[in-house]
C-alpha cells in the first residue's frame, strides 16, 4: 500500500475515461515573447478519480486547470469531458479557487444557491439545496452570514459547497487550501476526502504540498518545469485512509521521499529558468 508508477493515458484508462486531455499545448504571447506553458500533455481521468497535480511554480498547473474549466483555449490538442469537447466554462465542471471568488454581496446561502438557481431551480428549492450543502461542509447556522464575516477556512468551505451545489461531474481545484494554516488545512483535507467518498465526484486538485497530494489522491501527477509535461505519475494508496495520522506511517514517508526527489529536480530547473530570464 504505497505508490505505484502508472501511465495515466493507457489504452485501458482511456476506455473508461470521463476527461480526456490529448496532446495539449498552451502558449501565451507571440513570436519572441511567446511563453510555452504546457507542452504535449496527455491525460485520462476516470469517474471517481482524485488526481493531485504537483509541479514547480510556473510549470503550467493553473493553465491546465484553466483549459479544463474552459477559461482558456488550448493552442493545440484537445480536451473533452464525456466525449464532448470543452470550449467554454460550464456547470458540469465546478471550479474552486484559492480565494477571493465568493460573491461578497450574497450571504453564504445565496452564494451556494447560485448554481441551482442558474440551473433553473425555483428560489425556495435552491435554498433548500444550499442548506443541505451548508450542513455537508459544517457551516450550520452561518447561512445568513456574509463571506467577509467568515474566517479563511470557512470561506473555503463555502467555495467548495458552492461548487458542489451546482452538481458538477468534475471538480477543478486550484490550491484551494494554500492560504490556510496547517491545522485548518489538515482538518479540511479529511473533510474533502469524506465529501469525495460521499459524492463520488471526479476531482482534479492542484497543490504545492506533496503531503496533501499523497493523503488525498488516488493518482498523483508530477509535472516538469516549464513547459509543463508529465514528469511522472503514480497511483497513491492512501485515499482510503480517513485520518491524517497515516501521514506519519513509514509507507507514506517513503512515498513522500520518492515524489519529493522528482519534484526537487524540476524545481531546481525552474529556478535556473528564472535566473536566466
Amino acid at each position, binding site marked *: 500500500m504505497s505508490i505505484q508508477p502508472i501511465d495515466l493515458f493507457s489504452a485501458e484508462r482511456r476506455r473508461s475515461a470521463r476527461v480526456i486531455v490529448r496532446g495539449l499545448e498552451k502558449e501565451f504571447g507571440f513570436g519572441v515573447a511567446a511563453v510555452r506553458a504546457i507542452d504535449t500533455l496527455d491525460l485520462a481521468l476516470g469517474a471517481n478519480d482524485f488526481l493531485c497535480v504537483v509541479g514547480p511554480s510556473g510549470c503550467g498547473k493553473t493553465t491546465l486547470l484553466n483549459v479544463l*474549466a*474552459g*477559461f482558456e483555449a488550448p493552442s493545440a490538442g484537445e480536451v473533452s469531458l464525456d466525449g464532448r469537447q470543452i470550449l*467554454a*466554462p*460550464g*456547470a458540469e*465542471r*465546478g*471550479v474552486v*479557487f484559492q*480565494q*477571493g*471568488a*465568493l*460573491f*461578497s*454581496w450574497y450571504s453564504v446561502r445565496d452564494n451556494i444557491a*447560485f*448554481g441551482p438557481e*442558474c*440551473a433553473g431551480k425555483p428560489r425556495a428549492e435552491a435554498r433548500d439545496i444550499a442548506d443541505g450543502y451548508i450542513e455537508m*461542509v*459544517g*457551516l*450550520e447556522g452561518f447561512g445568513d*452570514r*456574509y*463571506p*467577509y*464575516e*467568515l*474566517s479563511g*477556512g*470557512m*470561506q473555503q468551505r463555502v467555495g467548495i459547497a*458552492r*461548487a458542489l451545489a*451546482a452538481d458538477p461531474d468534475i471538480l477543478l481545484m486550484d490550491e484551494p487550501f494554500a492560504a490556510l494554516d496547517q*491545522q*485548518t488545512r489538515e*482538518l*479540511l483535507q*479529511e*473533510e474533502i476526502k469524506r465529501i469525495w467518498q460521499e459524492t463520488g465526484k471526479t476531482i482534479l486538485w492542484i497543490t504545492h504540498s506533496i503531503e496533501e497530494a499523497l493523503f488525498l489522491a488516488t493518482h498523483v501527477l508530477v509535472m516538469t518545469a516549464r513547459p509543463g509535461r508529465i514528469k511522472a505519475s503514480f497511483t497513491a494508496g492512501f485515499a482510503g485512509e480517513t485520518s491524517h495520522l497515516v501521514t506519519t506511517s513509514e509507507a507514506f514517508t517513503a512515498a513522500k521521499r520518492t515524489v519529493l526527489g522528482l519534484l526537487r529536480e524540476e524545481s531546481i530547473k525552474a529556478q535556473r529558468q528564472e535566473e536566466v530570464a
Partner: protein
Amino acid sequence: MSSAAFDAEAPPGTTKLAERPEVTSARRRRRLNLLSFAIMLLVWIAATGGAGFWTPVVDPVFFPSPLAVFEAFLRLIENGYQGRSLGHHLMMSLMRFGIAFGFCVTVGITVGLLMGMNETVQGLLDPPIEITRPIPKLALLPLLIIWFGIGELSKVIVIIMALFPLMSISAMQAVRGVSRRKIQAAYSLGATRWIVFWRVVLPASLPGIFTAIRLSLGVGVTMLVGAEMIATSNGIAWMALSAADFLLTDVVLVGVLMMAGLGYSLDQLARVIERRVVHWSGKDS
C-alpha cells in the same frame, strides 16, 4: 457541527454591539463632527462681535453675525424673496438639480456599464465623453442658452454636462475592476451572460458607482450656482447671487448655507444608503 476546526474559530456576534470597535469609532466620529461644527460656529460668533461683547472684526454689513443670518432666514421664510416664497426658490433649485442628477444616475450609469461590458460601445463613446470632460461647463452656458433657450432646459443641461462624464466613466471603471475570478466562478456555476451581468458585474460595481454618486452630489450642488447665474429669477443660488448685488450679505449667507446644508444632507443620505446597500464593500473575500 462536523469539525473541530470550525469550533476553534470564535463565533461572531458574541461581543455586544456597542463594544465592537467599528461601532465605537463611528460614534466617536459623529462626536468629532459635532465638535467641528461647534468650533466653526464659535469662530463665526467671535469674528462677528461675540454676540455683542466686543467690536466685530469685520463690518457687519460685509459679514453678518450668525444671529443676523438666522433672523434673515426667518424673515425669508415669512416674506419670501423678490415676490416668491423661500420654499419656491428651494424647490426650483432642487428640481433643476434633481432632474439632472436623476438623468445622470439612470442614463449616465447605464452608458458607463455598457461601456465597461462592451468594447465596441466603449470605443464609440469614449472620445465624446473624454473630449468634453475637461471643458469648464460654465463656459458653455451662454452657448447652451442660445441653443436651448432661457428656460429650464439649458440650466438642467449644464448640470448634466458636469455630472454625466463623472458617472459614466466611474461606472465603466467599476465594471472593468470586477474580479475576473468572480466572473469565471459564475460561468462555472452555469450562469449565462445575462445572469453574470445582473448578479455579479452589477453588484460588484456598486461600490464604485456609489463613490461616483456621492462625488456628483457635491459637484451638482456647486453647478447650481452656475446654472442659476444667468436668465433666471428663482432658485437658492440665484437668491444669493442677486442679494449680493444689493449688499444683502445676510441673505447671501442664508443662500450659501442652504446650499451647503443641501449638499451635506444629500451626502449623508447617500452614505446611509451606501452603507445599507454595499455593506460588504472593501471587505473582500
